[in-house]
């Protein structure tokens, strides 16, 4: 049934030009990051690594969480309008699959955005005549960032489901992103969901923030992801459905 749920989520997104935002928005940090890189060549000497920090700093700090929050908000908003929650919850589909179907949709867009950010990174790198291809470890950063992003996505999906308001969870995401930035400088960075993306992307320093010690990071991502999913399914199962 999960497969059908995922297919349905895809059908529901027909005629919603959400993807345009996900194509356009990453271009901005890429372009500005490149500009910043060129302006500070005297300071930034680690080539691909320096460019990576310039391009991903703001993307993963201030930008990813609110963007994915808008997407999550939209997925629940179409259910909140016109009493579609009634419809959805009277379908012979396990509650778990309803939530996971939406999460799969979010995971897909997260993955595509990450790939797109990486493609832009490579393109701009070639444009500023960095040699060869970026080191594979940067690709690993992007993969780590995707997992961190998933935890944030699950959190936002849960918030949008419970709060039933479109704007509020997005505002929460903005505050989360800022507090995440502050937390990412502390020792507890891997414990705070909004920091995970930043830490995973290794967005604000040239040396690896995790120093090869990626296991706690992946455990934290997995724990948060599982926790948010479990809370969401519990909520859907045990509270009265309001249309």
């Amino acid at each position: 049934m999960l497969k059908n749920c995922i297919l349905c989520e895809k059908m529901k997104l027909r005629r919603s030009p959400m993807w345009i935002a996900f194509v356009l928005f990453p271009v901005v940090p890429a372009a500005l990051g490149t500009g910043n890189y060129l302006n500070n060549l005297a300071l930034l000497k680690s080539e691909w690594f320096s460019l990576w920090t310039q391009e991903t700093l703001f993307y993963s700090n201030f930008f990813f969480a609110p963007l994915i929050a808008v997407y999550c908000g939209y997925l629940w908003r179409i259910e909140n309008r016109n009493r579609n929650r009634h419809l959805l919850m009277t379908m012979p589909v396990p509650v778990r699959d309803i939530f996971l179907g939406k999460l799969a949709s979010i995971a897909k867009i997260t993955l595509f955005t990450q790939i797109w950010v990486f493609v832009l990174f490579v393109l701009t790198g070639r444009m500023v005549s960095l040699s060869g291809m970026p080191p594979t470890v940067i690709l690993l950063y992007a993969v780590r960032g995707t997992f961190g992003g998933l935890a944030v996505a699950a959190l936002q999906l849960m918030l949008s489901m419970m709060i039933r308001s479109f704007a509020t969870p997005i505002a929460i995401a903005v505050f989360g992103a800022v507090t995440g930035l502050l937390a990412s400088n502390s020792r507890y960075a891997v414990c705070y969901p909004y920091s995970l993306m930043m830490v995973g992307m290794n967005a604000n320093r040239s040396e690896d923030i995790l120093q090869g010690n990626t296991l706690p990071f992946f455990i934290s991502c997995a724990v948060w992801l599982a926790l948010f999913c479990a809370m969401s399914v519990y909520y859907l199962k045990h509270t009265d459905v309001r249309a």
Partner: protein
Amino acid sequence: MERNYVIQTRNLTKEYAVKKKAAETEAGAGTSRVVNRVDLAVPEGAVYGFLGPNGAGKSTTMKMLLGLIKPTDGDITILGTPLTSSGRSTMHERDRLDILRQTGSLIESPSYYAHLTGRENLQILCRLKNVPESEIDEVLALVRMERQQNKKAGKYSLGMKQRLGLAGALLGSPKLLLLDEPTNGLDPAGIQEMRDLIRTLPQNRHMTVMVSSHLLSEIDQMVDYVGVINKGQLIYQDSLLRLHEHSRKELCLRTDNNNRAVCVLQENGVPVQIEQDILSFPETKDERTVFLISALVREGVGVLRLWERQKSLEDIFLDLTGKQVSL
């Protein structure tokens, strides 16, 4: 004759917590009982009319039957499967899905994805219900909206949305159909069509239908069984035939001097009502009728006509609920 019940509830109760201020006005502080110890019994193959004024608890009851909201107390058994029982705090996911697989529903106003066409809406439902898409044409024909299927649902009139909702409920030929005020927003011709359709469902498609309404006249023409709910309590439940039989007859009288006649009848302790020159009072025993008529004649009142009248359903309803319900 022994009948199987498709829906059975025992002591079904739903309470909501209310804020202090509101609670002070009611007896039970802290909670308000929206559905109060309802024992529903919907026989297989019947069209069951669920009647009650707005806010009586119809939608809440039907939502509990679908597992959308959780009862505070009581048991629900649908199609032989227990959905909830008072021993268990929550329903079993497997039982819930079992029931939902065999149930179609239309609760409150219809649900639809406004940015998708009618057909696309139904395609989503087919996937979720695991029903082949070939059924779409069939249900679209049943509700007569083949021609509008490729228009966006958001642009439909309320009546069309209602039809789309019904089409969605019919997908997968469920054994049980729960329809909450399905004629809302339909024009008179549409209401008639909907009624005709619902009436044929038990025979042609072997469905049991539970349909709610606040309009008695609407239900009168399509249901076999009636449950009447008011202020959360089920105040009547039986066949429509019995409801008509149960209704007390009254005697009507036309005289040449109504004022005098009223005086005479009231002196004899008869609760008489006068409406458009016609006096009416509850049916009495024959001897007492004879006595009353002779009393009238003795007092010089000329009796022109005397006849027996069946109470209309509206009147019965009024008696049961104590308030005017038809809007």
